[in-house]
């Protein structure tokens, strides 16, 4: 197992390097520097600022210097908010996004997983059609639509839940979590249904029944182990999607998370912020993908022994 993990970790490094490099040069290539939209700056001040932010060095040297800083974990100062480093900004915004993502994932896995499993137990019946139709809604009503509609219904018309902001009240978390998580709940429902259907039609399920086990035991002890593997494998891409999705959801609900900062940084051409946030998010995504792949492989005993285990 360790060989597998080590191998995958090694594969991740070039990926990360590619991300950093591409982002770095993309951002630098953008027309208009970070200061061009500001009021006219005195040339000397501009030169001083450029020196401070190393903008007067050739591109290549800027790159190397950046990598050096990166190795120490320093993501550099923010262009837009002088006096604050990118690390600080990320540290401020990320916990919020993480919390949002966590609730959304919780919603997705619990509702989606159960809906899919329940639907798979009686295919082509009401027990199947109803959850799957609701799931279809989750897929076809994107968060940019669902968010406003939920706000309209629950926030404005019914006034049950707050419309925006992110305080300590649990009520704040509900609508954004549902909005972000609904699409993934739908995908997980479909995946778990398909996975369970496939597993339950296998011969070894018939063997389990022939042993006289009650149906619930057949499903839980024999069916789930294989049926949920596609869901576990999906968790990696789901995580990446949740992070991207947070951009939109945080914008709609005015949540001060990393996603919103990121979009703003993009508009403001805050080089270091964009770069820093990209590196940070990309690393997270890569790690999560790796974790979910490892978990999915571990769940399959054949792969487990193939990669060096028992």
């Amino acid at each position, binding site marked *: 197992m360790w060989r597998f993990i080590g191998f995958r970790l090694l594969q991740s490094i070039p990926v990360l390097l590619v991300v950093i490099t591409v982002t770095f040069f993309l951002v630098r290539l953008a027309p208009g520097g970070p200061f061009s939209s500001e009021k006219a700056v005195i040339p000397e001040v501009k030169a001083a600022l450029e020196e401070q932010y190393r903008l007067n060095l050739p591109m290549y040297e800027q790159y190397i210097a950046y990598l050096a800083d990166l190795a120490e974990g320093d993501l550099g100062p923010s262009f837009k908010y002088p006096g604050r480093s990118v690390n600080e900004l990320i540290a401020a915004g990320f916990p919020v996004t993480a919390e949002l993502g966590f609730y959304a994932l919780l919603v997705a896995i619990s509702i989606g997983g159960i809906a899919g499993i329940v639907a798979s137990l009686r295919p082509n019946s009401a027990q199947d059609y109803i959850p799957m139709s609701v799931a279809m809604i989750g897929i076809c009503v994107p968060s940019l639509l669902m968010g406003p509609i939920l706000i309209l219904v629950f926030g404005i018309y019914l006034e049950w839940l707050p419309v925006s902001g992110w305080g300590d009240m649990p009520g704040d978390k509900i609508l954004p979590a549902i909005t972000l998580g609904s699409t993934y709940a739908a995908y997980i429902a479909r995946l778990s249904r398909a996975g369970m259907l496939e597993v339950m039609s296998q011969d070894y399920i018939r063997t389990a029944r022939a042993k*006289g086990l009650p149906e619930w035991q057949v499903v839980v002890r024999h069916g789930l182990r294989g049926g949920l593997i596609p869901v576990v494998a999906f968790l990696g891409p789901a995580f990446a999607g949740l992070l991207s999705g947070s951009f939109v959801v945080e914008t709609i609900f005015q949540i001060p998370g990393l996603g919103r900062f990121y979009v703003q940084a993009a508009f403001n051409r805050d080089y270091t912020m964009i770069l820093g946030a990209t590196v940070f998010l990309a690393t997270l995504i890569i790690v999560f993908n790796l974790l979910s792949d490892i978990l999915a492989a571990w769940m399959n005993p054949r792969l487990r022994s193939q990669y060096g285990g028992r």
Partner: protein
Amino acid sequence: MLTVENLSVSFVTRMGTTKAVDDISFTVESGKITAIIGESGSGKSVACYSLLGLIPQPPGRIDGGRVMFENQDLLQLKPEQLRKIRGRDIAMVFQDPMTCLNPYMTIGNQLMEPLLYHKHVSQAQARKRALELLEEVGIRDPASTIDNYPHQFSGGMRQRVMIAMALINEPKLLIADEPTTALDVTIQAQILQLLAGLQTKRDIGILFISHDLAVVADIADQIVVMQAGRIVETGDRDAIFRNAHHPYTQKLLQAIPRGGKAVELPATEPLVQVRNLCTWFQSGKTSVKAVDNVSFDVLRGEVLGLVGESGSGKSTIGRSLLRLVPVTSGEVHFDGIDVTALQGRGLKNLRRRMQFIFQDPFASLNPRMTVYDTLAEPLLLHGIENRSTVGAHVLKLMDDVGLARAFVRKYPHEFSGGQRQRIAIGRALATRPEFIVADEPVSALDVTIQAQILELMRGLGREYGLTMLFITHDLAVVRQLADRIVVLQKGKIVEQARTEDLFESPQQQYTQQLLHSIPGRSLMELNA
């Protein structure tokens, strides 16, 4: 002990209602083996599964009948009551141990499960019992393998585990659904022996389902023959084999390959020469020696049988001869031409003269091409016919292989297995090749269809003057067709001889073991 009376089962689908089992009655006694024989579609499996309520009730439907087991009608029991009997008093062993064992659970856990559920013993007791049973079914050193997963066992061992799992609750009746069909012939013999032994030791009744009369000839006490959902004949073993009444039973008996080939072949020169053939496959760090330094000749006009179990390399050799797999080293000469060195146009021309017939008639035909397309393709490719003349040639080919001309524009999925194999044979013969490699051409077919296709191949071989390499694991079949036989084991040649010489006086131990494992030996003695 088990009495089935007038059982009828149907399937109701959108397409209509089919009667899978029609008014059948039979018994199984304690300490005896009752075999149910039938080809695909006979209803034998449906009948036995419905005894235990394993048929999903829509679309299945029990139309009538009684199944008496220990004074209870199983069909009348409520699901919970039936469940108590399943796995405890009546247990099942299935056909394919790879797919029938849960790949995600250890053998030990699966073995202990029915014990823990039905008899409420402790974990420690269950484990002890499981180890005992593994020992009993012939698994060496059970303590070290009990926590392994199914994929870590071989096919034969997995089937032993299935049997252990079925016996762990000391059932009174064991239902075995084609338990040896997926196994190699030597393993099959072992498993049959195991079952017969266990049965006498524990005095249980066995209901043995099979499509192969020869397999049950050695162990069955009573035989029930089914066709199209009905029982056509019942009798005890000797009666059936000596004196079958029903024409279908007789047809089944005749389809059992028996005896050898009478034709004497004058010594001729070799058409195909194989020298030091090695084909190795890389898998990570290890290389698998599928074919290990094999040399033999195929004489012009003869049928050479290539016999071996799985892993013997026989299929790889066949494919190597036609350059379908890359050869690692060694040479293959066809009519003096070095096949292994050919490229491009030379190779294409050679392909005209050598053809291949595959095992699985469904997979060897392109599902999107009609019979016409499939048969015309080689004719057009090699310029034997052009677009305007190819039609007549295709129709004639269909006549040769015994297919109705009217079906020429149909697609593979609209035919039966035997018909598809005829199409495949037609395709192989289209270019009038001199040499044909047939890789298990009848193994995937029902026994009566097998006999027909073998007859067809014999006839066509004579008519077209073919030289054939016939690859199979079935010694009984090859005896009927081959002039000489080469026996393979693990990529090496074990023995080569003329067919009758091999059968009468096998030299090597492995050959003797193979011959000994041919099912239905007692049958041959019966009819000798």
